[in-house]
């Protein structure tokens, strides 16, 4: 082996695929034990980008981030929502214990503004969490954001369409989200740092609409049939 490779091996700086070394990158627990276990006991990486890839809203994607949101607001740091597709509903957030004083909603006009805003938010020490819904992002721009995220040690989650799952991305964590049968959320780890991806788990999300008791008979009749004939 070459001299260089030898020194690298001695410093244990070469990652070998057959060993699952415990990484010590800074991270925030997701609040879901099942998912944390799949992510090597870590959670959302700090100072790096995370991506959630999903087809449509309303499958529990916000509830996935809710424990972190609550924690960040409790610490007096801000949560930025950048270009969300719909309005984050204030009464629901308040009910979940998110301090709305710490929630800032930002709308940007064009792509340049979007990247600039995201970078600024990520670099600021007041930021705890940035959630962003980019339209289209070139790989180069994701790389730029990844660098900005590294500068700030904040959690940044990008919500993107599921068709980008095929594309490679410099993001440190990539999760594919799908709705499950029991109103749960199926998480497929596409990429994570320090180990092989491919873990799958399912998170119970029925509580987001108070459906934990599985009492489908509570609605006496689906009124749908009555109205459409």
């Amino acid at each position, binding site marked *: 082996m070459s001299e260089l490779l030898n020194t690298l091996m001695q410093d244990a700086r070469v990652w070998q695929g057959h060993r699952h070394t415990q990484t010590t990158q800074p991270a925030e627990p997701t609040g879901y034990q099942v998912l944390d276990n799949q992510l090597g006991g870590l959670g959302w990486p700090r100072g790096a980008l995370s991506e959630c890839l999903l087809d449509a809203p*309303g*499958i529990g994607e916000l509830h996935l981030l809710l424990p972190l949101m609550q924690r960040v607001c409790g610490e007096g740091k801000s949560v930025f929502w950048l270009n969300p597709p719909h*309005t984050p509903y204030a*009464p629901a*957030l308040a009910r979940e214990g998110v301090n*709305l004083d710490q929630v800032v909603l930002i*709308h940007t006009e064009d792509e340049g503004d979007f990247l600039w805003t995201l970078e600024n938010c990520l670099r600021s020490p007041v930021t705890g969490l940035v959630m962003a819904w980019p339209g289209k992002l070139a790989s180069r721009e994701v790389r730029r954001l990844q660098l900005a995220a590294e500068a700030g040690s904040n959690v940044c989650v990008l919500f993107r369409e599921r068709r980008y799952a095929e594309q490679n991305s410099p993001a440190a964590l990539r999760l594919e989200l799908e709705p499950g049968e029991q109103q749960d959320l199926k998480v497929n780890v596409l990429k994570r740092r320090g180990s092989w991806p491919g873990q799958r788990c399912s998170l119970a999300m029925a509580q987001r609409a108070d*459906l934990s008791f599985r009492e489908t008979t509570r609605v006496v009749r689906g009124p*749908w049939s009555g109205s*459409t004939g």
Partner: protein
Amino acid sequence: MLWLYLHFPHLVLDHIRRTREDQGALVVVEGSGQKVIQACPEARSQGIRSGMRLKTAISLAPDLGMVRADETQEARILEDQARWLYRYAAHIVLVPPDGLLAEIGSLQKLYGGLPAVWQTVEQGLNERQLNAWIGIGYTPLAARLIARAGKGECTADKGHIQRNLSQMPLLAAEFNEKACTRLQRLGLNTLGEVFELPPGELARRLSPELLAYIQKIQGTRPDPRTPWQPPHSFRQQADFVQEIEHTQGLLFPLQRMLAELEEDLCWRQQDTDSLRLVLRHRHSEPTRLQIRTSGPEHRADHFLNLIRLRLEQHSLSAPVISMVLLVKRFLSREAPSGQDLLGETQDLNEAWHTLISRLQARLGDQALRQLSPQADHRPERAWSASEVLRKTGTPLVPAAELPRRPLWLLKGPQPLTEAPVTWFSGPERISGGWWDGQRVHRDYYIAQLNSGQLAWVFRDAREGWFVHGWFG
């Protein structure tokens, strides 16, 4: 009373020169544009003198910068000087077009002697790159004559000042031409000789006005002056000899103006959160920019950063001939403290304001919103968006008694296009709004769609089905 007089021999030149990066020759020409009134040292070294015809001056220095004399501009610049002098002296009198009087007798104790007062004023002049001749006298007119003659000395000795005055030639004493010739015909050449004449004779031979003037110099007749009152707002103007075509060129003069603002705010012990910048063009309407910070601020570099951001977004519609910085809103300044009651450090607070101000400067105030719930049953009115404000000290009470609502609310109800797979809970009837004409009468259900999305759907009074939210 002891008076200090500041005579600015070329105030307009000084004012313009300090907003310029290059220090080329510069002259002020009279209104008709024929004659040179003031010439800066560079121009003088090239042989240009005041009183020279403009054509001659241009042939001496082809790249001469020219400014036309304008009375209102001069008055404004003089007032600018009064504003900074007001920090050192309370009783200030404007003597247009080029003089300032300050009562300094009462300041000696504060500053610890006359030399200290003198030094303070000189330092203030140096910082602002102003040329001024200083004179001290026991009457306003005496101080003025001494200053204009360039004989000012840092002394409060009555005899010395008197001697200085007495030796002054009549021409320097600012008598009108007629009186001056008459006095010279009488064989009088210095002011001292005029002082020695008996007052009765003077009034009889010359005019009562002349006697009054002489007595005012001597201090035997009162010479009341109304003190100048500083305005409550801050205003700074920069005038450019060459029109500025790029926003980059505005930053240099802005730096100095903002430094003045910072100093002014320091003296007021106040902060501000909104600046107004007016860019004047030669032919079109002035451009007005409002720069807002998210919280009280006084530091020049912070303002400069925001203005730089703003100017990057805003390209100049026409070349700028002058720029005005205005501040009318002042906020009381909070003393910096290490940590407040909630354990929130000042640094974090400051970082928050910096971030929000930056974002607002580039994206506009409307782009940033904060949410809050509202007391209304109608879902679209149960929340509101407001401007971003730093609020602390509202401990959060988990509002578990609020009804279950989705985390996403659609911007408007969307028609439901497919039959839901599963129905969960409902109906929840929401009816209201008859009081303001926005009547709502709906039955809400939670249902799962084919795609797996959990939706908040409703049926309204006209039997239509809509999606109003997603349980994200």
